[in-house]
Structures are given as C-alpha cells and as structure tokens.
C-alpha cells in the first residue's frame, strides 16, 4: 500500500501499481517499509510536513573565504532568522567537515527540525554529504535542500559585496520555502544484471574488458573495426621504453580472444540502448561480414567449416583497395584482414567494393564454406548492468591546415604514416622512404603541435598530449635506423611530463636530434626535387628560418573517432565543446559520466598516452564492476506519479516522455497513465505538460515550486 508516512489526512490511498513487463522488478528498500510519498487527490499544500508546523534549520557555510570573503554572512544569518518557518540558524567555516555536519545532526534533535537548508556550494558537490548528515540527525534525507551561494553567487559576484549578500538572502529564502514543504521519500533498489559492455576494443577497451572478465563478469566487447587493438596496433615502438608495440599488445589481444567471459563482437556497433543502470538493453548491429567464423558455420550445420584465416580468398580476389590500417600505403583486396596478427583471424568482405565475382567462394572450397556473399547485417540484443565507452580517437584531418601542404606535397606525412613506414611489418618493411621517389631521407623535419594548441579557429585549442613524446621517439628511430640522417624538431615547448619522459627527452637530445623552437608558419615545396622548405621563426635565436628538408612529419592533433558522437548519444553521455566525452567530475570522478552506470576509458575522454589510457581503463572497469558486485542499485525517488482521479487518459504525456517511462493502462474501468518508476528520470517533462495537473513530480511538486517562485517574487510575504 502506498501511504504517506505520518500522514493522517490522506484523502485517498492509491493501490501500488503492478510493474510493467518491460521494467526490472523494483524492490522496496527493505529497511524502510514505507514507499515514496504519494500525493493526495488534491495535492495543494500536500505533504506530511504541512501537517506539522514546518521548523526549518538554516546552515550557512563560509567555505573558508570562498563565500565569506565576498559577502556579509552575518547579515545573511540575521535575515534568515526572520524568514517564516525558520526555527534555527547557524554558520560554520566548512559545513561539509565533520564538525559542520555534526551541527546539523545536533540541531535536528535539539530544535525538532523538519527541514534542513544548507547555503553553500552546489548539490552536485555536496548534496550527498548533507543528505547523510540529515539522515544521521534522524530526518528523512530528502528533507534537505541546498542554496547555492558559492558557484552561482560569491564566485561570480566577487567584487559586489552588497549585491551578493542580497542574492544570498534570496537564495536562502527560496530554499526555505521549499524545505518547509519537503516530504519523506524512499529510494528504490533495482537488481543489477551481472554483465557489462565495453564499446571500442583499443588498448583501453581491451584492458577494461579483461579486468571485468577477470572479476567474473560476463563482458560484451564491441569493436567497429574488423579486428581489435585500435591505434596501438598500428604503432611500431612505444615511448619511453621503446618496446615493440605489437609485442606487448598481441598477447593481450590473444587473451581477449580467448577469455570465456568476454564475448567479442568485431565489425559491429551499438545500434540502440534502452533502460538504465543495472538494466541496459543494448542492441548490437553485426555488420554483414560475408565470412563465417567456425562457430557461426557450426550453427549453420557446417561442422569443421568457417574461416581459418588461410587467405586463399585473398589470393584470388581481383579487387584492390588501399589498406586503411597501413594508412592507405599498402593495397588490400575486397576480402581482407588488417594485418597478419589480427584477432579475431577472420576475413571480412568490404561489400562497398566487392564485385561478387565469387572467386573467393571457390577458393575457400567446399570444406570451409566460410564465405557467404549474401550475408546481411544482424541484430543481437543483450542485457547489461553497466557499460564503458572506449571509442578512442582519430587524427584531425591535417590537410585543413593548408599552410603545411599535407595531401598537396607528397613528402609531407603524418605521425601515424611514419609509424607504419618505420615498422618492420609495414608497407616498406621498415624502411623510411620519401613517398615521392622512394629515397631514404637525410634530413627530416617534425612539426609539433600540428593543429593542436591552435587558436586560429582552423585547428584544435587543446594539447594532444602524446605528440611531443612520439616525435621524440620518431627522432630516435631515425637516428638509430638511418645513419647520417638528422631529425629536426620544430616545437613550442616539449611536454615530457610522464614517468621517465624527461629523461627520454634528454636522451634524444644527446643522440643528436636538433630542436628549433618556433611554430612552423608555412611549408613550401620545390616542384622539381620535391624537397620541402620549412619556414619558421627561431624564437630562441630570434631569426627567421627557411630550412630545406627531404621529408616532413606532422605531429597532427587528434580528435574523437568519427562515430563517437552517435554512440555517446545512445548512452546519454555528454561531451565537451571539442567533442571529447565528458566525465562526471574532472578530478574526483574521472571515469564516471552523468549517466549512472556508464563509464569512460582511454582517449575518448581526451588525449592520453598508453600508460594513462590503461590506468583509466582499469579505473573504469573497477567503477563499472561495483554496481554489479553490489547486486542492486538505488534509484533516486524523483519519479513522476499519476493522480488517477485527475488523469483524463489523454496519453499526451506518454509520447512526450524521453525515457519511455509512461504507458496508458486500464484501471477500474478507466484509462489512466501509469509510470514505470525505475525508468523515470524525474525530468518533469510530463508533469509540466499535463493539462489536467494529474502528474505529481516527487521532490519537485507543484506546491514546492510555486512556493519557491512566490518566495522569490513576493519576498516571502504570500
């Protein structure tokens, strides 16, 4: 039975609604038997508090000098005492500290408070803290309301003592108006599906999946490309230790392929996401690959069939395309693998270029019968408790910085192209050559911050964070591999901030790399020799430079990978202005997002080198496993409730709800709206819209909001 706790005058009790089939079973909080407050049919001035006279306690925080330095807190305190309904006022240096919280707890008991207002920072930072203190004092934690007098007041009106004091008084008065009408609410718990999803299988996604799997959690790993490994698998060596990238990555790739707790979906993407923390229903789109895995073959009754990676098809396919993994510098066929070490070792047909000649089918033969030229996209539905986004990055299209002539001048290449050219398994077998004539260069210029730290509007304003270090690595590789070739690094400043990075920088200097401090203004090509003139200003020697070199390597900026934006929207994750996915808090919650149950790993959140990427992946995996191991999560009790008597069953709200939480049901012979509480995010769209005022938004009730507006407009006199 849904009843208001302590309420004596409930006009009509509403029967607890059955849960709709789609939603997970909602468990009552066992400790508190009473459910969330239910409104009476006439909710005006409803609420258990109004039955007793409200006694609100106001606590004003100095936040050191953050608040106290910009306003007259004593005046705010004196004013607060005059606000109707206020029974107690106090202030303290740091309300969030143990003594500060103690004040709240004690005052609740001493002054029989019914509601708490803390005038301090933001709910985002400290609502949980003060709710706990409220609860410790013996009140329902939802009897707490915050007045933001720091971020939205003292910090913005730092030099307006009078104005900020007045604004703080307003904020306190408004908060008190709400606190007087707050009701007891009880969070619900929902069980958490013991499975997780990781989107993107670069080193970040692989690490996160391996950790989750090791913790006993079934993990779906979704990779858009045909094989896993991400950018790291394209690298030759890794700074600062110079270990071979493939050598340290391949074992991890193999582990991912082998782990029984990991279900790997390559050449796949997330198509749709429904639900909420604990119960995400995700639809995976497996793109038509044209080639069956042994497992898929078996499912079709072809025992012993499926792709074994022999490459017989590759040998006969007549269609040649550039291999994107090799940055287009090596050909591949229409049926292809990225490189010989791929995981999974399954070929893929690029149906955009396949001419369906069928030669591969014949070459593959009647035993394997791995190739299906008619294969179609497939959709798979899975349920997971939590998800990690690890969609990584791509290079900023550096040809947009036209002054450096990428794509116009043959001998201007990017750092990733350099990685492939210097790599023994790359298109030239590890011989760095000039694209124009295949000659070994003698003088190579590296343009750092190419498109990064660029405020002209045509590049990216941020630092891409790994290009200084990989350019140092590239300089080393040149000195090591090509005797007599000198690397020249054109830089703004060298950011070698990681462990053993500065030492690496010194080492490269000693090895003979040359450093010129200056942003490259322009690159000109000699049309005959195809040599390049790098034009800059040497800002240490204060003189213009025009240096002729054989090859230019642009350390291009990076940006979120192409499909990041679509994917993040499916999961309701925000991004910053430059498109990187937004963490819940940059310092204190770097792996979480504002969507409960969704976490971030690796470069999709912002440029990170491999050590930082792996650390963030392990953090995300740990954070994503917590709700799963706990087995249940509490949902904020801010859901909408339908007052059946007022509901006309028009159903307008059902279509408006962005979370599909509403439905029309038959009840006592009438059509009324019903809320699936676990799906409702409390956004209030329906509540604000309902023409009959039949929707009651818990914790943001109409009486509460009207009281706040009145308090603001009428100065408390109603």
């Amino acid at each position: 039975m849904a009843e208001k706790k302590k309420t004596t005058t409930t006009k009509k009790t509403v029967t607890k609604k059955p849960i709709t089939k789609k939603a997970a079973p909602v468990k009552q909080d066992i400790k508190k038997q009473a459910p969330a407050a239910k409104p009476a049919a006439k909710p005006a001035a409803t609420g258990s508090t109004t039955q007793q006279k409200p006694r609100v306690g106001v606590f004003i925080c100095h936040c050191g000098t953050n608040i106290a330095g910009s306003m007259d807190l004593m005046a705010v305190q004196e004013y607060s005492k005059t606000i109707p309904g206020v029974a107690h006022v106090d202030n303290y240096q740091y309300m969030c500290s143990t003594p500060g919280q103690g004040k709240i707890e004690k005052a609740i008991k001493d002054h029989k408070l019914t509601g708490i207002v803390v005038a301090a920072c933001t709910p985002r930072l400290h609502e949980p803290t003060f709710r706990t203190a409220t609860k410790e004092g013996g009140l329902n934690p939802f009897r707490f309301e915050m007045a933001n007098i720091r971020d939205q007041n003292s910090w913005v009106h730092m030099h307006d003592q009078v104005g900020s004091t007045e604004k703080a008084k307003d904020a306190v008065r408004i908060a008190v108006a709400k606190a007087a009408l707050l009701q007891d609410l009880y969070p619900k718990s929902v069980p958490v599906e013991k499975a997780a999803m990781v989107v993107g299988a670069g080193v970040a996604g692989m690490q996160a999946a391996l950790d989750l799997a090791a913790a006993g959690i079934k993990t779906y790993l979704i990779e858009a490309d045909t094989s896993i490994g991400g950018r790291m698998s394209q690298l030759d060596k890794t700074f600062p230790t110079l270990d071979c990238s493939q050598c340290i990555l391949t074992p991890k790739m193999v582990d991912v392929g082998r782990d029984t707790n990991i279900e790997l979906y390559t050449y796949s993407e997330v198509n749709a996401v429904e639900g909420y923390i604990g119960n995400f229903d995700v639809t995976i789109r497996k793109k038509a690959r044209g080639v069956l895995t042994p497992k898929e073959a078996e499912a079709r009754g072809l025992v012993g069939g499926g792709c074994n990676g022999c490459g017989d098809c590759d040998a006969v396919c007549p269609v040649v395309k550039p291999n994107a993994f090799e940055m287009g510098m090596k050909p591949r066929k229409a049926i292809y693998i990225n490189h010989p070490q791929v995981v999974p070792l399954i070929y893929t047909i690029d149906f955009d270029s396949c001419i369906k000649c069928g030669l591969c089918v014949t070459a593959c033969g009647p035993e394997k019968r791995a190739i299906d030229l008619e294969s179609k996209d497939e959709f798979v539905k899975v349920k997971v408790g939590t998800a990690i986004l690890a969609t990584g990055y791509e290079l900023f299209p550096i040809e947009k910085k036209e002054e450096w002539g990428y794509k116009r001048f043959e001998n201007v290449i990017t750092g990733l192209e350099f990685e492939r050219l210097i790599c023994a398994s790359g298109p030239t077998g590890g011989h760095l050559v000039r694209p124009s004539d295949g000659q070994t260069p003698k003088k190579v210029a590296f343009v750092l911050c190419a498109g990064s730290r660029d405020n002209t509007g045509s590049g990216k304003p941020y630092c891409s964070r790994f290009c200084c270090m990989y350019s140092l690595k590239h300089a080393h590789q040149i000195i090591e591999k090509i005797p007599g070739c000198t690397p020249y690094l054109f830089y703004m400043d060298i950011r070698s901030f990681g462990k053993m990075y500065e030492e690496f920088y010194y080492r490269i200097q000693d090895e003979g790399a040359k450093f010129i401090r200056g942003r490259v203004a322009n690159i000109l090509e000699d049309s005959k020799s195809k040599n390049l003139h790098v034009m800059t200003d040497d800002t240490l020697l204060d003189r213009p430079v025009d240096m002729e070199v054989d090859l230019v390597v642009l350390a291009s900026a990076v940006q979120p990978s192409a499909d990041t934006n679509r994917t993040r929207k499916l999961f309701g994750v925000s991004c910053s202005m430059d498109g990187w996915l937004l963490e819940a808090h940059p310092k204190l919650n770097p792996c979480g997002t504002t969507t409960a149950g969704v976490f971030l790993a690796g470069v999709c959140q912002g440029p990170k080198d491999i050590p930082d990427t792996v650390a963030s992946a392990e953090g995300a995996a740990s954070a994503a496993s917590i709700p799963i191991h706990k087995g249940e999560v509490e949902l904020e009790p801010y859901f909408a409730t339908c007052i059946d008597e007022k509901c006309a069953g028009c159903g307008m709200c059902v279509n408006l709800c962005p979370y599909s939480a509403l439905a029309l049901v038959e009840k006592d012979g009438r059509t009324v709206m019903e809320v699936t509480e676990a799906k409702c995010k409390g956004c209030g769209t329906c509540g604000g819209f309902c023409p009959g005022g039949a929707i009651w938004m818990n914790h943001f009730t109409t009486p509460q909001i009207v009281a706040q507006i009145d308090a603001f407009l009428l100065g408390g006199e109603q």
Partner: protein
Amino acid sequence: MSEPGAKHKFAFYLGCIAPNRYPGVESASIKAMKKLGVELVPLKGASCCPAPGAFGSIDMNVFYAMAARNLVLAEEMKMDIALVCNGCYKSIWEVNHKLKHNKDLRDAVNEVLKEVDMEYKGTINVYHTAELLYNDKFIGVDKVRDSVTNPLTGARIAVHYGCHLVKPHKDREFEKEVMLNTEHPMWMEELVSALGATPVEYRNKMQCCGAGGGVRGYDIVHALDITNEKLINLQEEKVDALTDICPFCQLQFDRGQIEIQEKFGATYNLPVLHFAELLGLAQGMSPQDLGLDLHGISCESFLRKVL
C-alpha cells in the same frame, strides 16, 4: 531607381591607384559587373581610403576619421560599399568593423566628424568586388562563367591574392562564411577557370607582393627583393599572366618589373592584370577600352594568346 536587371547596387569606392594608374580597372569593373546584375554607383566626394600602411602606422586618429568619412558618404547614399583594392578593403572594411563593435571608438570618431557635420551610424557593409564575384549570394562563379563571350582558353594564369583581403583571418567574415581558409585559398583559381583560362599554382603563392605596409615607400630595394622572389617562382611555372585583385599589388608587380630590371638586371616581361581587366577581356571588352596599353609591362604576348 536601379538599372533594369541590376539586382544589387553598391557605392563604388575607387581608391587612388586604380583611377590614376590603371583606369581600366574602373571601367572594366563598372561594365563587367553590370552584365552580372550589379550596379556600381560612384561614391562622390570620397577621399583616400586612407592607405593602411602610410596612415595606419603613423596616426590612428586620422586613419579612423578619414575612413569613417568615406563610410558616412556611402551611408548617406544608403548603399553598401564595393571596392577593387585590398588596401582600401583593409582600411574601410576594418574601420567599419571596428566602429560597429567599439562604442568608445565610434564616439571619438564622431567627435571628429562633427566638424564636417557628419555622423557615422554603422548602417552599411563593405565588400571587395572579388568577393561579390565569388559569393553566390551576389553573383557566384557560375554566373561569371555564363557571362564569358571570349573565353581565355589556353592561357596559363597565376593568382596573387594579396594580404589584406584574406588576413587577419580571425576577423574576416568573408573568410569564415565563404572560403573557410586563408593559408591556401583556391577561390580565385575557380574564378580564373570560369573565364576559360588555366589557373596555375606556384611556390609561395600567399607571399606578400612586397609593397604593402609602407615597405615600398620606405625601402624599395627590400620591397623589390620580395617581388623578385615571387617573379622567379612564377617564371618557373611558365605562366602567361599574373592576375591580382589589388591595384597596389599590381603596381608592384607591373612597374616593379621595370625597377627590378634597373636595380637587379632581371627581366621577366610578365603581364600583370587586375581580375576586373581579365573579366572585361573575357566579356569581350577591347584592350584599348581596358587601358591595357597603359601598363608598364606590355600585355601583348598574353593578348596574342587569348584574342
């Protein structure tokens, strides 16, 4: 009011060098633009823009007030300004932009203008004719192509953009809205193609002509040295002519070749034509109408190729 068929009307600001040294630019602009539905109405009483290097480097108050006076003349005509010179663009466009966005500056300038009973109000915009030709909003490349009666087929033509129209890139609205990049623009090449000629790229296309910023007046040898470097790069590509959109750049490349011959002994004989002159030719105007005989470097070789 307007010519039948003239969709747009502009106050035509001529500047100093065009009417004095290359009068063909004036006649070609008026006639060619008319064919494209743009009427250029002379801006009567206009003064020097004033020259951005010469005035802007010495006395900003005079610089702002003079440019503002020219703007007010157009405001009184209730017409946007169209002009044919990058230097004029820099002064008049930029002063207009600054006065529109900076009240203190506007008040100070209006204080000066009061002496001649004028007030700057900020009601008009300023355009370069090249910008009008390229931007579909006014004319666009397709219309330019359609207006050609004498295609310049077979001519290899290189473009000198000049500095002031495209930079500083941060403020230039035309840059942001229409052409998006300043470091290696290609829109002038599109216009050259529209006339039937073959646009030719050359090394360091975006380098200054050498004259700007007062360098020509202050250190002619230095200025010519820069010009000479550009001419060497152009010669490498065997171009038939160079086109520009700024009479001052044109002066530097055209007369500059004679000076270079005197000072450095190098001969190029490269015809240099303002894009308006090229457009005039392509629309069938005669070289005499265009005053091409007044150029320092003879255009004969080029004309033989295209006529």
